[in-house]
């Protein structure tokens, strides 16, 4: 089993993806703009673009299930453990992708600017992080209420995409990975309107998401109302949309894995299973080495506790709808029927 397969398997294992009926046929593929893809930084630097949204849906769905069973809508408890998949209730009818109006995603605003995060320090301990992206990372921290995450997201975006929002890895290897991801997970997740396109997409965006997993972001919590079920994979190129997938993914990592320091977050970004069976492996160590080197190269001091606490926490996570709206400017409920 190669690392990508291990990653995919770990997503399903660690987050207890439930079995469902086979999804209805998906629509014809929409080709990604791979021919004009401007940057593939990982091909130059051997980067880790890690299927960012791979477990996002899984993590959030666990919270949703808790509410279904009568629990309150408290923010995620970071100490919660993954629920045993075997205890899941019988699968309901397969949900259908939420239709979106034409041009729906065009309504997502451009990059936020400093006033959008008034009071957030956009100067201290950012190193060489592009100034135009700092408000976005700050907004991610503020919306997710994961204190200190902004600069961690900056380090991750440097590694995953070289700060290029339209980074796209459509190499044979990567497309094979997205095909496997789609094939392995489609029976256990709601159908994707652009599933075949996602399978052929590879990965991309500011945080290097593997397309099928990205489009399944938040299905655990939102089920058929998850925001990307009817979206083409190119939505990953929209920085605010990619940002939502990234914060949701970080919540999963912080909530369901033992995170000993900031570098462990990056390890989880590459492959959650490395935080369990792979801890201490050569690959685990190398990813950590890379993370510290990336932070140093970027000029972000990970030990500056005035901007990055010693440990990050997702205990104050406000939930998918609030964070989605804060980041994308769109309200989930107004989009259900287009």
């Amino acid at each position, binding site marked *: 089993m190669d*690392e*990508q397969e291990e990653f995919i398997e770990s997503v399903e294992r660690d987050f207890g993806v439930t079995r469902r009926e086979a999804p209805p046929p998906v629509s014809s593929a929409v080709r990604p703009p791979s021919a004009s893809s401007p940057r593939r930084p*990982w*091909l*130059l*630097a*051997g*980067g*880790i*673009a*890690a*299927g960012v949204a791979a477990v996002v849906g899984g993590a959030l769905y666990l919270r949703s299930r808790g509410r279904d069973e009568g629990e309150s809508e408290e923010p995620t408890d970071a100490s919660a453990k993954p629920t045993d998949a075997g205890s899941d209730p019988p699968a309901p009818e397969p949900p259908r992708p939420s239709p979106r109006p034409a041009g729906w995603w065009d309504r997502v605003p451009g990059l936020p600017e400093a006033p959008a995060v008034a009071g957030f320090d956009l100067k201290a301990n950012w190193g060489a992080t592009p100034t135009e992206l700092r408000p976005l990372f700050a907004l991610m921290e503020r919306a997710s209420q994961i204190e200190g995450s902004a600069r961690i997201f900056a380090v991750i975006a440097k*590694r995953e995409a070289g700060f290029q929002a339209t980074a796209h*890895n459509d*190499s*044979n*290897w*990567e497309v094979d*990975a997205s095909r496997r991801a789609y094939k392995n997970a489609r029976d256990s997740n709601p159908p994707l309107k652009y599933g075949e396109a996602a399978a052929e997409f590879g*990965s991309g965006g500011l945080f*290097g998401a*593997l397309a099928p997993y990205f489009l399944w972001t938040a299905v655990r919590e939102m089920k058929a109302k998850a925001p990307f079920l009817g979206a083409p994979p190119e939505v990953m190129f929209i920085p605010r949309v990619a940002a939502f997938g990234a914060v949701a993914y970080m919540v999963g990592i912080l909530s369901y894995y033992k995170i000993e*320091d900031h*570098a462990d977050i990056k390890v989880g970004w*590459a*492959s959650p299973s490395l935080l369990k069976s792979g801890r201490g*492996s*050569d*690959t685990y*160590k*190398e*990813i*950590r*080495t*890379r*993370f*510290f*080197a*990336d*932070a*140093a*190269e970027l000029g972000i001091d990970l030990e500056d506790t005035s901007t990055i606490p010693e440990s990050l926490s997702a205990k104050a996570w406000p939930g998918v709808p609030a964070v989605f709206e804060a980041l994308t400017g769109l309200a989930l409920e107004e989009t259900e029927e287009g």
Partner: protein
Amino acid sequence: MALLGTLGCYSSELDAFADLAGDFDFLSTHEREVWLARQWSLMAEVGGWRAEFDETLAKLQQSQVGLVSLYSSALAAFTAFMRREREDTSREERATTRTQVLLALRSANPAATWRVETDVSSVPSGACYGRAKWKAMGVGKLASQPGNQEAPQDQADDVAVIPERIFLADEGPSYFWTPAPTTLLLDLGCGWNTPLRLSLGTYPWVYGDRLQAPAPGLSWRSNKTHDPAPLALRIAAGFWHAEGNLKADAREVVAAWKHWRATTAPLVEPLPTWPAAIPEAGVVYREGERLRVHAGDAAKAGVNGPRGFICAAAYNHVQERFAAFFALRRALLRARKSLSPELRKVLIANPDPCVKQQLGIASLQIA
């Protein structure tokens, strides 16, 4: 007085020598990975598995995880390469024992595996194989064999396998050692009359008196469950990966390097230098810190001296391994403030006074 470089604590010549492997910024992932890939490429080239490595590297470069798994992936490629030709059935035990001994050497002193010298009685099976099958055959039993239905089984049990050494004896003096009189116990069970000496940092050339091609370490075949050659490569590669490099006591490596330099310099310095005005086919030239065989085979041409013949391929490989160790050590020392906590912990635990000097927790008087 010229300022000493990062490695000046060990030798004033060492910084310049380390440049043979290339200087790089450890905190630049791109530079670090390019450097690492080059080390593996060189190793694969001399080992004859370059095609397998290139294929592995190409796949990694396409993947999202990139080169983070270079170490394990390259080792896996080498393991597969070595397993194409397994140990003979009658010698399967040899691969097992070799592996056990290498593991024992590594665990006995992880900081000093570049060049190991040990009493063979301190390692598994006394660095012999075949001993477990030794069984004296009684005369009476032999006499009873004819006509005995169980004779074939008895014969199988009683086959006397003569114990053999699992490694060659580097008796020295060689290019890696000048053995001092030793009080180490010798185990004559399979012919050892010297301590076991292996230069694992320069794998696959592990013996200082056998620097011809093919390299001896490449003949360490695998059996179904044990892979001594990949294990040896893992140990060697550790010296050009961060954690293994920082664990190593560089004083040991410096001592080995100085011996190597002292014994090879008289052979190399008289060589004509490259570029040559009129290059001659088959002639060995000195090109910086490397040897160059013009229109000839680096596996066959080389230099000869009182300690034996060194083919150009082996010479260059040994030079590269020393240089890689020091180049990485230098890069790590420069980046010491931004290393991961676990690497910093290893660095601080290193007993080398030169490291402590770099960390500012000791001062040394340079003679």
